[in-house]
């Protein structure tokens, strides 16, 4: 840790946060190996233990240093670790630094109208034409696509093999003329996500990540990274419970004797989830992310939904009003912002986005508990022969 502390000190000395342009500072941070300390040297890291990042982040935050753009959560949390694990050296050199500085925002072209829970049923086709792939299809639930310069893409390169085996993972240039991004309005009124229509989008083979047909394995790792990110540790009362607890303390009008035990149940559940997240983090510090993190995502969604619901019941007059239904396109999602009605509605997405709670339970049951698989009529069947 002393080395890292020293590296942080040096970075701050050479690039005083107050005097640096944020992009320049983040670039210097990347070059110092302090972007993701567990990444290899030269790729934004120092090959340090994964859990050392927390202390680095803390020191930088204390010094008032600018952090990476939250609108680039997909890039930071999913694309970057995937590129480090599976990208070519050239891809790593080309993409990681500008991703970290926020010069290039990334989005994720995975889900499709017909491939939601069943993500491996992706039907978007990529066909090789010389040394360039032509990609055509429709993606959905793409957060930040309207801000993104690049995307990670899962596309079908072979329809004659079973669904998992015919997928390949690519990096896509979102400025390609074949990319059409349209806002997808949610029940909150805003359009945090998009539909993305791909028509003969050109992707050089050098932007393929890992081997043809290995897309599913790479994407699964990406998703596990996302789930770990979601389950990261936090302070007591950092989440939805904090909003309700503070309100309860400060405003006697929302205190309800009948709901007190319910409030305390959610407090307890939030706290044991925080502890479980912390315990997972301590385990990850010595190992790799595993499917256990799927369970944490379940907890997060459950609590977000239950607690935002309780908040509305505690202040019913207030909850019958709403701040706005205007169609806005936020740069990043917010679970804790705006009013109680917004938070309640937005939380409904927590059990759908990034893998539905139903799929997460399947993952826990089969991969963690080892329960026998449910019937899969498409198992071993060439993709083109599967009923859809």
């Amino acid at each position: 840790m002393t080395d890292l502390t020293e590296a942080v000190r040096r970075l701050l000395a050479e690039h005083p946060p107050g005097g640096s342009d944020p992009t320049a500072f983040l670039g210097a941070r990347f070059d110092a190996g302090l972007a993701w300390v567990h990444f290899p040297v030269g790729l934004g890291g120092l090959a340090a233990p994964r859990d050392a990042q927390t202390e680095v982040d803390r020191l930088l935050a204390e010094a008032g240093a600018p952090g990476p753009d939250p609108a680039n959560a997909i890039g930071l949390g999913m694309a970057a670790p995937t590129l480090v694990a599976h990208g070519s050296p050239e891809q790593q050199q080309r993409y990681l630094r500008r991703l970290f500085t926020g010069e290039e925002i990334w989005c994720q072209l995975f889900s499709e109208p017909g491939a939601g829970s069943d993500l491996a049923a992706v039907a978007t086709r990529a066909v090789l034409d010389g040394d360039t792939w032509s990609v055509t299809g429709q993606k959905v639930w793409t957060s930040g696509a309207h801000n993104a310069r690049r995307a990670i893409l899962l596309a079908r390169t072979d329809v004659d093999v079973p669904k998992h085996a015919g997928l390949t993972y690519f990096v896509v240039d979102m400025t390609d003329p074949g990319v059409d991004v349209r806002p997808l309005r949610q029940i909150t009124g805003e359009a945090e996500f998009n539909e993305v229509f791909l028509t003969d989008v050109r992707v050089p083979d050098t932007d393929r990540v890992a081997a043809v047909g290995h897309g599913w394995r790479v994407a699964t790792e990406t998703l596990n990274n996302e789930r770990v990110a979601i389950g990261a540790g936090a302070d007591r009362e950092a989440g939805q419970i904090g909003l309700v607890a503070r309100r309860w303390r400060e405003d006697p009008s929302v205190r309800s004797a009948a709901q007190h035990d319910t409030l305390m149940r959610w407090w307890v559940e939030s706290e044991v989830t925080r502890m479980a997240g912390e315990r997972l983090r301590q385990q990850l510090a010595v190992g790799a992310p595993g499917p256990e993190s799927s369970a944490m995502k379940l907890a997060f969604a459950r609590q977000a939904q239950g607690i935002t619901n309780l908040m509305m019941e505690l202040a019913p007059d207030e909850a019958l009003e709403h701040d706005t239904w205007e169609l806005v396109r936020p740069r990043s999602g917010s679970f804790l912002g705006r009013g109680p009605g917004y938070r309640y509605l937005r939380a409904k997405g927590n059990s759908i986005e990034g893998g539905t709670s139903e799929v997460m339970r399947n993952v826990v049951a089969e991969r963690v508990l080892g329960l026998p698989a449910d019937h899969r009529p498409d198992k071993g069947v060439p993709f083109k022969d599967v009923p859809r």
Partner: protein
Amino acid sequence: MTDLLYSADDQDLRDAVRGSLARVLDHDRVAALYDDPGADVSAAWRAVASDLGLAALLVPEHLGGAGATAREAAVVAEELGRAVAPVPFLTSSVVATTVLVHAAQAGSQEAADALGGLADGTSTAALVLPWTARAGTRTTYDGGPVRPVAGAVGADLLLVPRADGLHLVPAADAEVTPLTSLDMSRPVATVEVGGEGVLLADSEQAAVYVDAGLVAGAALLASEQLGVAQWCLETTVAYVGTRVQFARPIGSFQAVKHRLADLYLEVVQAQAAARWAAAALAEGDPDLPVAVATAQSWCSEVALHAAEEAVQLHGGIGMTWEHPVHLYLKRAKADQLALGTPAAHRSDLGVLVDLVP
């Protein structure tokens, strides 16, 4: 034991309401209210109130009404819930009408006159109390702005329970400011009453009449919630039967089935509870307060649960603005808070059945 079934006439009434609404209303029109609160949905109210004459249901015949009972009004409420219809039936034709009928039957000519317009659908009225009020809480309007009041936007008459009694005030003598509402199909407003209007009842009577209006509203809100829950259940059952993932309809997955089976049971119970509350209201059953508190506690939660399950089991599409399920989620949540939260009704119920903390 009171009859909890629907009569053949009830079924005819249901068919008429459903058919009529289908002709003049669709989900896009309701959704449009979220972007433009002034969008014209008056055809729905015309169909319900004028064409079918349903605004007159709870007005006695000698006061120019249809002299029907709460059983029939409950069938209408179910259908309005099922269509998430943006009409002032519950606020005007149930709550305000019940208050006015009490006043008129006690001899108020002004109340009787007002009922005439309400019954034929040419005017609507709203009770100026927060929409979360419930019987027995003795709230009055003490001047200044009060919010959130349901049914006030577009109402012609306001019923104002002041400390000195119940006043009937023309909407023109009050400032009604629409609020952005969780449920734009039943928008709430801030109301500030300027004029005194006419006194319909003294404060003691007013409390009785207002409570009667709130009880009637809560009783029939349960039927509206039943309609919401049924639409959500049926729509979701249909969706999971056809949506294919993993090469199977998702409705063939046992976890999905079991959740919908549990929800079905809740809806079966909600239907019984709602019919019981409606029958108790129709019959003036002394058990009415118990029936209403029970039905409100149960049906509020069931409608919300049904809407939440509908969103979840529709997956991503259920989170989109383009699918109508969000209209039901917003209505279900607003209905849960309306006329007393479930926890508040359970608290009331504890007193009613001698189970206090």
